[in-house]
């Protein structure tokens, strides 16, 4: 938010940093959702899970959760809708018949191929505008906040 615009809220920047973050997050999500709608007909959650499945070693839930940043419930709902859309399929594990291994279908791969260049262009553009040095600082602060977010009050 540009603090000089009279139309904007007079935030106490230190105190309401979480509010600014939340606002930014909403804007970025809207942008990503539009991009996905335009090029791939998947939601942002589905997209992150689709990518996570495609890069995870074994296609297993814990792996996908780690790669997507979503909890088990979110992953399981996302997998369900991706399966329904025919973008992901699950097969029994060779070594453990009870375990399911997830794979991206050819249709899912087609979506990744169609969307990924646009996603990469968007991220590259945003990161370039910020600059590498600022980005390093930014990331350090994010890490501090991430640690502080674990504290219970």
């Amino acid at each position: 938010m540009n603090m000089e615009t009279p139309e904007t809220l007079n935030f106490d920047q230190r105190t309401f940093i979480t509010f600014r973050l939340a606002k930014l997050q909403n804007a970025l999500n809207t942008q990503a959702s539009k991009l996905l709608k335009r090029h791939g007909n998947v939601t942002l959650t589905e997209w992150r899970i689709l990518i996570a499945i495609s890069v995870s070693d074994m296609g297993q839930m814990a792996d996908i959760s780690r790669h997507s940043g979503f909890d088990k419930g979110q992953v399981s709902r996302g997998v369900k809708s991706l399966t329904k859309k025919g973008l992901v399929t699950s097969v029994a594990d060779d070594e453990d018949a009870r375990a399911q291994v997830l794979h991206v279908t050819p249709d899912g791969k087609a979506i990744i191929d169609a969307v990924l260049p646009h996603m990469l262009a968007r991220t590259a553009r945003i990161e370039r505008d910020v600059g590498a040095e600022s980005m390093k600082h930014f990331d350090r602060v994010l890490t501090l906040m991430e640690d502080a977010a674990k504290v219970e009050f």
Partner: protein
Amino acid sequence: MNDHTGFDTEFDQRSFITFRLASVQNALNAQAGRVLKSHCNLTLTEWRVLLLIDVWDMAQMSDMTRLAGLDKGQVSRSVKSLTAKGYVASGAAEDDARAQHLSVTESGHALQRRVLPHMLSRQERLVRDIDADEMRIFNKVLDRLADGAKLDDF
């Protein structure tokens, strides 16, 4: 390796700044949700809406979506629930009878006085280890990212 996707398997969305932000945001929201849960019966969005009405004097839902970047549906559900819980009252605006004018009730104020200290000490803790210079850069980057989020040609 599950390598039938055709692109470089080195690709890792976790290195994206947008992904990093979303993860941190997730953790922060979960924490705020826990604080609220142990001190009152509001969701995080309800809490934010309550503050917007009171501290920033936003009497109309359209202000919240436009200035605070909240989702229309979320705002409308939160206002409904805050009204049902008796923390927010809604009447007609003086200058436009069709527009809704929101205000915080006495019980809404009492709730804020009770919960705010806990939320503020959490905020203080979040920025405790960040020095002024770093915070300045952080805010600048947030501005840049917000500008980047407005681009719509990808």
